């Protein structure tokens, strides 16, 4: 089974309290931020590696970004990918159509029975890319997949709907799936694994390696600017030492007749 997993590098903003917007008004200040594989993509990689371990075959990790994105490809290789490809172009705030076009062009040149994306990204969270690439490749797809059983020429999946309901499908291969969190427990990537992956050479391709030129990539959507959300009505903060705050909260709850 030939599997392709498309992954993205995102800043770790969970711990950063204040995010600042840079001069261009189109990106956030990256200094002091650490970067990692997009959470959803790590679940997708884990799903891909588990299928490869079960049915054999090859796994290729693909990403679109400049040189500093090599670190997530190293991690993908350490996790179990056989080869990795980086298309050398910054598409951070690009129109998803364009990113989809680039990825479709790469995937078309590779043997692919199953293509896996993360359901969405932690930073922009548009959740469009995977399903767009599927349409461009002309292969069936399903998004928000939370369970996946791969057979030789078909997959049995279930995807998440609202209110805790799931819907299940049988899909013939080749197919594209976008993977949701909770489908598995992604394995830890040891530094030893990353070091071993350092030795493997990463395939880097430019646009024209793909037969694409900049003028073919006409954005239909444009990021005007970024803004910090206005500090609207927030919570009434109870301050003081843990002792005082807890006491005050307990009184408030009592006052509201909670107990």
């Amino acid at each position: 089974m030939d599997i392709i997993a498309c992954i993205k590098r995102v800043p770790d903003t969970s711990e950063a309290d204040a995010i600042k917007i840079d001069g261009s008004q189109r990106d956030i200040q990256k200094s002091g931020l650490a970067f990692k594989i997009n959470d959803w993509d790590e679940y997708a990689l884990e799903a891909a590696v588990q299928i490869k371990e079960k049915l054999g075959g090859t796994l290729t990790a693909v990403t679109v970004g400049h040189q500093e994105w090599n670190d997530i490809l190293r991690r993908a290789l350490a996790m179990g990918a056989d080869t990795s490809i980086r298309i050398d172009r910054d598409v951070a705030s690009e129109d998803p159509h364009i990113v989809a076009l680039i990825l479709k062009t790469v995937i078309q040149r590779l043997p692919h029975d199953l293509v896996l994306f993360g359901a969405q990204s932690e930073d922009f969270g548009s959740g469009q890319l995977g399903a767009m690439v599927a349409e461009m490749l002309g292969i069936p797809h399903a998004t928000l997949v939370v369970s996946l059983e791969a057979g030789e020429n078909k997959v049995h999946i279930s995807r998440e709907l609202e209110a805790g309901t799931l819907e299940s499908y049988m899909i013939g291969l080749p197919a594209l799936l976008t993977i949701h969190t909770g489908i598995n427990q992604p394995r830890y990537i040891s530094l030893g694994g990353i070091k071993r992956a350092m030795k493997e050479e990463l395939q880097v391709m430019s646009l024209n390696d793909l037969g694409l030129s900049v003028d073919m990539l006409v954005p239909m959507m444009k990021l005007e600017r970024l803004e910090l959300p206005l500090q609207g009505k927030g919570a009434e903060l109870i301050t003081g030492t843990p002792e005082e705050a807890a006491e005050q909260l307990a009184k408030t709850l009592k006052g509201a007749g909670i107990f």
Partner: protein
Amino acid sequence: MSSIFVMAEHRNQALADISLQMLSKGRQLADQAQTELLAVVIAKDTTGYAEEVAKWADRVIAVKNDRLEEPLAEPYQKILALLTKERRPKIVLMGHTSLAMDLAPPLSVELEVPLATDCTDISVQNGDVIVTRSIHNGKVNAIYSFAPCNTVIITGRVGEFPIEEGNRHGQIEEIDFPLEEEFSYKKFEGYVAQEVRGVDITQAEVLVSVGRGIKEKENIEMAQQLAEALGGEVSCSRPVVDYGWLPSERQVGLSGKTVKPKLYLAIAVSGAFQHVVGMKSAKMTVAINKDAGAPIFKVADFGIVDDLFKIVPILIKKIAELKDR
């Protein structure tokens, strides 16, 4: 400006709330741009739905066929593509739902038109459509414009657009839609509803909800003690279910349950929109979180910015003391 489409989605024989939110927003945009609002309803039997959406739409396109009982992306894409090519609306609007995640992206590729998903605001400024998206999990807003094109597809974030009273009587136009293809490559096999084992959190008066910051399965016991002290139940956000620390029937949010408790006490919950959607209508919300910038503080009534491991043990004790008095 040409018309505005709103695709109304139905689940378990009822229109989804988000569709009423989209119809209300569509109505407002249509009036502002002095154009027509067309509601599209697709089902085996569209009569009930058509009458309801007619309250907002100038015109209702009711697409009927025996094989359209379940809302599935592939047939919906075929229908919307045909209608859009035929009627050339300026905006095709739908809720950012699980169906839309499957449907909107391939539709936008098929029609070669731009797509903006999960938008928190939509506006038309002298004929140009402008949308706002919330990114970096709620800490930054991004404003987008579109290159000149005849149609734009937009999915709206659940719970961001209020439902306004509909006072129109849209004309209903029924279309039969014989589906030729078999979509054999993708076979729908049915729903898997979550059997409700144990507690039903939607009935609880008080909910103590834990997020990823609880950090360890054993610490959930502390939340359990707090819940018991308040006569309530423990619920959680999605990461806690992903880690396997609590079963999915305790999950609040878009892919879990919607709750309306008297008190929703969120502990170490960051407040991602998918979670907030499930608890927005709690009568009183209290948030305890180390991260002052956590979006939960925007929706909570009261908040404590501190470490839960310091606050919760003392809170349990204080409640016990107040109860004895």
